[in-house]
Structures are given as C-alpha cells and as structure tokens.
C-alpha cells in the first residue's frame, strides 16, 4: 500500500515537474520576447523621434497643411505620435512572438486569427483616423459659422455635428471589423433615425413658433431696410 502511495506521489510530482519543465521555457521565452521587444521598441521609437526632430517634422507638416493631424496628436506633436506608434507596434509584435512560444499548441490559432484580421483592423483604423479628423474639422467649421450667424447654441450645434460624425465613423469601423454584426447596423440606424425624428418633432411641434418667427424675420429682412446698414468695405 505504501508503495502504491509512493508511486502515486512520484507520478504526480513527475507530472507536475514535467509540466513545469515544459511550461517554464515558454514562459521564459514570453518574458524574454516582451522584454526584448519593449527594449527594441523603445530604441526604434527614440531613433524615429530623433530623425523626425532632426527633420523638424512637426513644423514641416504644418507648412504642408496637415494642421489637423498636429491637433489630434498627443501634445500637438505628430513626431510623438509616430514615435509611440513605432514603439507600440514593436511591443505588440513581441507579445505575439512570446505568446506563440508560450503556448505553441493553442496560440497559433490566435496568431492566425489576428493576422487575418490585421488588414480589416488597418482599414478600420484609417476610417477612425479620417473620421476623427473630419469630425474635428466640421465641429470647428459649424462652431465658427454658427457664432458668426449669432446662433446662441453654437457650441451645442457643433458638438452635435461632431458626435454624429463620430458615431457614424464608429459604426463604419465596427462593421468593417465584423464586430457586433447586424446589431451595430441596426443600432446605428435606430440612433440616427431617432435623432432625425427628434429634430423633426422638435422643429415641427415644440419650436414651431420659433421657426415661424425666424422665417418672418428672414422675409422682413429681405423687404425692409436693415437696422445695421454699414458698408464694411
């Protein structure tokens, strides 16, 4: 009986040790890959940063007219944005290599899936980036125009435009990533339709007097002399 217990303990210990022995190299490889990729990412990021600073990239970009990119970048510096992008790309690649080494049997499937979805992710990222730039541009354009038209709720209007574009862009990106499937499309349609319906109801019912007064003012301003007839030029 004692021998049987001894054998069982021996076998269990052996299995655990074999398991640990087979697990440890993978873990060490993961840690090593992450450490090395972090170091490499940091070094490459520094190198890219140094080169771009040497080229005066931020100011050149402004001269070329890419102002919105500078506004969107962290600390208004496209150099910093590119530096961080390079660093994090290398770190993520290191993680993928480490995970492959860690669970050779399980993770290749994950890697394959990740690799397959990379083009979609890239396109979605571009859609999001362009959408954010467009949203900021339109937000500012609407804000300035609304202030110049003396609309009191100019900020609200510009924010509404901004979020409408962002929601639209987010729906497009998620649809491209095939996340959520029809739910995203339906959700967006309901949200967008809801906003339009709410606006139509607000104007049609709640604000009909304001709208009619506004139309009256416009009609009068076309037929009657303005109270401010200065010639600016």
């Amino acid at each position, binding site marked *: 009986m004692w021998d049987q217990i001894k054998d069982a303990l021996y076998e269990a210990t052996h299995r655990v040790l074999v398991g640990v022995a087979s697990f440890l190299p993978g873990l060490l490889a993961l840690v090593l890959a992450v450490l090395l990729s972090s170091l490499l990412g940091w070094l490459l990021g520094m190198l890219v940063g140094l080169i771009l600073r040497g080229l005066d990239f931020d100011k050149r970009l*402004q*001269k070329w*007219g890419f*102002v*919105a990119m500078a*506004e969107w970048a962290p600390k208004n510096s496209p150099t910093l944005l590119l530096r961080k992008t390079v660093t994090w790309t290398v770190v993520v690649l290191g993680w993928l290599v480490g995970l492959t080494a860690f669970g050779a049997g399980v993770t290749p499937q994950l890697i394959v899936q990740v690799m397959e979805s990379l083009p979609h992710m890239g396109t979605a990222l571009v859609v999001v980036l362009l959408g954010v730039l467009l949203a900021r*541009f339109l937000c*500012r*354009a609407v*804000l*300035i*125009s609304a*202030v*110049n038209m*003396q609309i*009191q709720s*100019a*900020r609200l209007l510009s924010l509404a435009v901004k979020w409408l574009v962002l929601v639209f862009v987010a729906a497009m990106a998620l649809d491209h990533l095939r996340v959520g499937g029809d739910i995203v499309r339906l959700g967006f349609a309901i949200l967008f339709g809801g906003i339009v319906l709410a606006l139509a109801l607000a104007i049609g019912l709640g604000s009909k007097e304001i709208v009619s007064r506004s139309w009256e003012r416009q009609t009068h301003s076309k037929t009657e002399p303005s*109270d*401010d*007839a*200065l*010639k*600016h*030029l």
Partner: protein
Amino acid sequence: MHDPDLTERIVTAASAAPATTAIVVGVPSCNHAGTVASVLRTAQAGLGEFFSEQSSLLVSADARSSDGTREQIRGLRPENPLLRELGPADGGAASPGVEVRELRMILELAHEVRARACLVLDASVTSMSADWVAHLVHPIIDEPFDMVVPCFARHKLDGAISNGIVYPLTRALYGKRVRQPLGSVFALSGRLVERFLARRVWDIDVSALATDARALSEAICGEFAVCQAFLGPAEHAGSGPSLDLSSILAGVLGSVFDEMNHNVAFWQKVRGSEPVRWFGTPVEIAGNPPPADAHKMWESFRLGCRTLQDVWSVVLPPATLLALKYLAQEEVAGAALADDLWARIVYDFALGYRLHVMNRGHLLRALTPLYLGWLASFVREMAAAPSQDVERRVQQLSMVYEVQKPYLISRWRWPDRFNP
C-alpha cells in the same frame, strides 16, 4: 496666358488698336448687366472730354456672364468704335475669381499696345462720372506717378474693414498712408503693368475683393510712385447674392495676409509712415449716415468670447485672451476694445495665417466676432462725432498699429519664443 484662343483675341484687339495707344481703360465684369453699359459709356465720355488728344482704347473683359452683360456690351459697339471685347468664348458658367483673370487680360492688352496708362474700372459702380477718368489718369500721363488709388467720399462709419484693419495695416507695414487701399478701381503706368506681368502678380489665387490691395502693395514694394485721387461717392449695384460679413473678411484679409507673407523682406525694414500725394478736392457726402447697431455687434463679440475661446487660444497669446475675457463682461455701454489690443489681435491673426495654425478659412472667419467687437467700440465712440473727428480717430488707430509693429516683427521672427 495659358489659353491660346485668348492670346489670339488679345493680339487681334491690340493689332486693331491705333499704333500708339496712350490710355487703355479696362472694365472686367461678371454678371453686371445693369451697370456695365453705363460704366463703359461714362468712361468713353471721360476719355473724349479730358483726353481727346491722346489715343485711347476701351476694353471690356467679361467672364462668361449669364445675365445678359455681354449683350449689353455688344449693344454699345455701334456707338463706340474704340470698344474692344475680351474674354472667353461664349458658353460655360462663370466661376469664382474669374474677374481676376479678366483683369490680367486687360493688363496684357495694355502691355501689348504699350499704353502709358491703364485704368481699371469697377463694372458694378452706379455713381461714376466722367471726372473719374481725368482724376485717375492725369497723374500718370502728366505727372511722374505709377499708380493712382481712389479716395471715395463716404459716410463717416462706412468702410470699417478698411478703417479698422486694411488702412492701418497697410500703412504700418509698407510705410505709405494710402487712405483707401480697397478702392476697387485704380490706374497703373505702363512700366508698372510690365512689372505686374513680369512678376506674374495675378497668376496666384487672389480674392476678387482685394485685387486693389494686392496691386498697391506690389507697387509700393517695387518702389513705384503712388498717389491718391479724390473722387465722389461710390455706389455699387450688387451682382448676384451678396457675401456675408465673414466671407468678406476672409476674402479681403486672406489676400492682405498673403501679401504680407510675400513681402516680408520689405516690410520688416520699414519704420514709420509718410503721406502720399493727393489729387483733386475732397467731396462731402450728402445725406445722413446709415444706422449702425452697436448693441448687436457687441452681443456678437460677447457670444464669440463665450464660445470661440478654444479656437482663439490657438492664435492669440494668453494675455490677449484674458483681456478679451474681461472685456466681454461689459455691456455695450462699456464697449471699449483698446487700440493696442486690437492692433495686436490683427497681427496675431496675420501670424496665425502665416504659420497655418489651423485651416485658414476657419482662422479668418474666427476673426469676425473680434472685428464686430472693435466696430461696436468704434461706433459707440464715434456715433455722435463729426466726420473730421472720425478721420482723426482712424489716424490715431493707425499710429497705434505703427507703434505695435515691433510686436509683430518679434512674433514673426520668433513665434515660439516671443509669446506674451
């Protein structure tokens, strides 16, 4: 000239002209059916009355008008053998900025016939008299001047963009006191026309609202002799939908700031300003000045202060933003945007335009509430004052622009380091 058909038209028009043409009078037009015939007739009368001994040519350059302007011009041909018609072939639609192209064609024709003077008129004017031709052309034909800029009789508060921005800025930058840089008509000498064409002054994108300011700054920077001529009042008929204030500001200031960028080497050396010679006698404008609602303007300024801080903070330094914030707490009775603050704001926007800190259209349009704030202060202060006092006040403001010029130069040279 990129269109061979147009080149041929210019050459044909030039070859049909007298061998020695002294004066070319050009009228660029675009949808000015109601006024173009009257402007051409008056110009013809002016040439006949004051320059009958000089050979002259009247040129109409229409930019594909769709309102019958061309028919109006063609209807004048039988009574006016000197009239030449330039412009693209019939058909197609007019596009924005085409009048600039028509202006260039007139200058090319003037150069082709070796004219001593080229007078460019505004086809939308309804108050032109034959005297205008004499006042504008005489300093070039009989005096040693290269450019004559008009000075129209105006109501005391009219021309606020010119009074508050373009005149003081042009004066401080280029050192010449040309009172109305946005006159819309001007006369040029043959050698100045030659320089404009050689330097391709009209080949770049320029707002039709500021061709005159562009011509003026080019003439001053080329060290050509500039003078002014007093004319009567200038009434204009609209052609098509009128532009809103922010579009006018963006059109004018975009061109003026572009000129600043082109002529940095010149204006950074200029200190102070000098008077520019006048011709003719000033005319007082009849009638009451139009009403101006300072309250509405001030409220626009306050709305801008409440909502556009984020946009302005990209252009204006913190000290200016703080001053504006305090000012916006005042009601219209306390509206007083100080001259030095206003001059620095205009300089900061010029710098922001140069540095491309944001979309240039947005930047220029974001100036509108600030301009209305300045205008409300000006109207409140000057509403009851006589015209002479208003003129004195504009001169005082212009002097402040000159005093603040070192601020502009410092920020222009070291935009990152010098940021009060």
